[in-house]
């Protein structure tokens, strides 16, 4: 992993190069570096300027789609990856991105097609391989359910790093807490699930879909609090007729979602979420 300092130097150098040569394709790695640092406004500005010059570049559309994805604007991200694939049907990044979006939307067959392409072309890409494995698992579960085997609880596929850390099994993240398997969800700010699980009242696994949407919610909450001069956001609660949602950020890079029945008061959710956030922080420290 590159240090923050090295990345800052790299960004400065790429920015200088882009200033001296605005037509340079350096906007692609510069935009990606800014995105990875979470500087989404700056990354978007760079990407859009690049797209203004190179509207036929699949890489530029792919970059912009990833930024939109980080913002939680999944429909717009889909459109950009779709454009990238029209321009370059074998574009790996677009296959990977669109495959992930199909996966979270529950369209597993379409997800499989795109992720198989991405994984075949990027055999060393952990993200593509893990996403493909998850889709295959979900398809297998669906087939088993169709054969009368009944619904099984999804088990997240741990990354290589997680698998290598004792006690870092994401399925055991909230072990011992109320709702450890269903109703507690830890995700990163890109909307990818890190641990825990969530099912709908009908019993469908909705953890990945909710994670994808929640990343945008947290960015919006942060933006709202900041622009209204309210400082950093602390928590976000939503009350609905058939359940309460409560969101906190255990660390700047992660979000914790707690979902409970409507009979559980919001005040109690705050206490449970605080406890679960402490557990999540300890688990995350174990990964480092």
């Amino acid at each position, binding site marked *: 992993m590159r240090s923050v300092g090295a990345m800052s130097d790299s960004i400065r150098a790429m920015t200088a190069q882009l200033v001296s040569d605005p037509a340079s394709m350096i906007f692609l790695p510069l935009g990606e570096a800014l995105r990875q640092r979470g500087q989404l406004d700056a990354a978007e500005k760079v990407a859009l300027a690049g797209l203004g010059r190179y509207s036929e570049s699949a890489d530029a559309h792919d970059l912009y789609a990833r930024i939109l994805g980080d913002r939680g604007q999944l429909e717009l991200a889909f459109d950009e990856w779709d454009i990238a694939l029209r321009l370059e049907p074998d574009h790996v990044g677009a296959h990977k991105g669109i495959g992930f979006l199909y996966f979270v939307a529950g369209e597993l067959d379409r997800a499989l097609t795109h992720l198989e392409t991405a994984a075949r072309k990027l055999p060393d890409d952990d993200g593509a391989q893990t996403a493909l494995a998850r889709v295959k698992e979900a398809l297998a579960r669906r087939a088993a359910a169709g054969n009368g085997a009944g619904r099984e609880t999804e088990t997240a596929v741990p990354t290589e790093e997680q698998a290598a850390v004792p006690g870092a099994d994401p399925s055991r993240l909230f072990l011992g807490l109320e709702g450890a398997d269903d109703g507690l969800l830890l995700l990163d700010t890109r909307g990818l699930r890190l641990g825990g699980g969530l099912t709908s009242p009908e019993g469908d696994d909705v953890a990945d*879909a909710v994670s994808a949407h929640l990343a945008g919610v947290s960015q919006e*909450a942060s933006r709202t609090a900041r622009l209204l001069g*309210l*400082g950093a956001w602390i928590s976000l609660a939503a*009350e609905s007729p058939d359940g309460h949602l409560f969101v906190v950020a255990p660390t700047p890079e992660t979000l914790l979602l707690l979902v409970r029945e409507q009979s559980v008061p919001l005040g109690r959710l705050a206490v449970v979420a605080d406890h679960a956030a402490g557990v999540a922080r300890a688990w995350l420290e174990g990964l480092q």
Partner: protein
Amino acid sequence: MPEFATALDSITRVHGVRGAMLVSVSDGLVVAESSMDGVDGAPVAALTASLAGRLRRTTEAAGRRLPTFIHLRAATGTVLAVPSNDDLLVVTIGAPDINVGLARLEMLHVAERGI
């Protein structure tokens, strides 16, 4: 629209409330506001409508029905929102020590009256 302002007054009387407003969800514009001293209504409306829209999509993805009450707690203040009929959102801005329970009841009352 004096009837809107009158309805919102019941919310602004609650302890800790700095202001209340009605927001159009579809375009994020202020429809009516009450006692918004020191608070610029336009950005509050736009940001809260956007946040409510994202939360709506999240609860849908979770297989739950649409939110009836939203509470954003921040370091130096609070934003509350209650969707009403007719594409409207009742929004309240409050201090950290706002009486959330009472504000929530008044907001639900305003929303249920079908402004």
